[in-house]
């Protein structure tokens, strides 16, 4: 060990020291930690959603009653639901206060936080996709006229197609959400879980 210490201390790596100006500039930079990155993304999505909601609200109030007005109102309700969804996401991410803890606690917290975040992401999509589908049907009804549309849907063949499409839409969308989440955070989560296991 003493030999290793000598190698390490006497022949330490050469590096270009940073001057105070460079360090001061670094303090103004953006954090690239996974939690900070996710927070930035969610904030951007939330701001976009709120802006679109306001525009939709203004637009909906200018419309007289009719299909377009109801479409705008249903979209507006969806965007309001999305705002709550983003706020909940931010709350989940804000729970993390890791780097001050020891390495094991920090990794454990990160694993817990990311797992909760991914679970919430999956669950919300499992709920939101059926809502999209129902909205699609609702818009169809508004476009064709409710009576005619109900008659069209009540035919067994059309009903079967609709159910088959709903199932296909649900499975493809949830599979896509899982695949996307695995691609984004799966490897990182696996790495963190391995490190945590190593410390147990």
């Amino acid at each position: 060990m003493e030999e290793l210490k000598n190698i390490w201390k006497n022949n330490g790596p050469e590096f270009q020291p940073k001057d105070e100006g460079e360090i001061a500039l670094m303090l103004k930079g953006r954090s690239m930690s996974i939690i900070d990155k996710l927070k930035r993304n969610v904030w951007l999505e939330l701001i976009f959603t709120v802006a679109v909601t306001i525009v939709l609200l203004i637009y909906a109030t200018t419309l007289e009653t009719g299909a377009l007005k109801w479409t705008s109102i249903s979209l507006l309700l969806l965007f309001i639901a999305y705002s709550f969804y983003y706020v909940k996401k931010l709350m989940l991410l804000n729970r993390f206060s890791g780097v001050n803890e020891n390495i094991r606690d920090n990794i454990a917290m990160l694993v817990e936080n990311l797992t909760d975040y991914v679970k919430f992401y999956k669950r919300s999509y499992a709920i939101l996709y059926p809502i999209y589908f129902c909205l699609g049907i609702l818009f169809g009804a508004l476009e064709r006229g409710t009576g005619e549309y109900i008659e069209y849907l009540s035919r067994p063949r059309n009903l079967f197609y609709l159910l088959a499409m709903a199932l296909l839409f649900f499975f493809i969308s949830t599979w896509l959400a899982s695949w996307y989440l695995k691609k984004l955070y799966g490897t990182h989560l696996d790495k963190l879980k391995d490190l945590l296991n190593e410390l147990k």
Partner: protein
Amino acid sequence: MKSNSIPVIFFPYLRLIQCKERHAPLVIAEEKKFISLINDHQGLIHKICILYENDPEIRNDLFQEIVLQLWKSFSSFRGEAKITTWMYRIALNTAISRFRKQTRLVKTEDLRELHLNISDSGGDDPEENFQKLQWAILQLSEIERAMIMMALEEIPYEEIAETVGITQNNVRVRMNRIREKLKKLMCP
């Protein structure tokens, strides 16, 4: 700053601005103190970056990320622990839990390149010995790297245990294993 021409609803915001102005010199003093601290201990951060990142460009990003995380936690540092212990904790946490795409690919390629640059001879060249040690440490897991780095920097086992979050006995056992691994890697 408050004036009669400003509507009442803006008063809370004005108070916030006034508060910021009042505290601005304190923030600047804190920033100066922090920058001087980083300046004095930047070798520690550089060493962690070298052990956790091979690509010089990404290494620079990691350095910046560590500085940022230290700055974020600086206000909560109350001097209960040694400043270097606090720095190791934040810096190692940042390096270990950082998010990277294609981690395995980059690591394997870089390590192979580093290994090819080291000759097989026993070597009395200090630089070559250091490269060999660096290569051997890079073969270890990220937790083992943190532990051996602190040990090489002569941090007592008690502090290593506290930083990693395991018992001192566990540190002792793991350090023996790490030493064995390094021995095998450096003198096969």
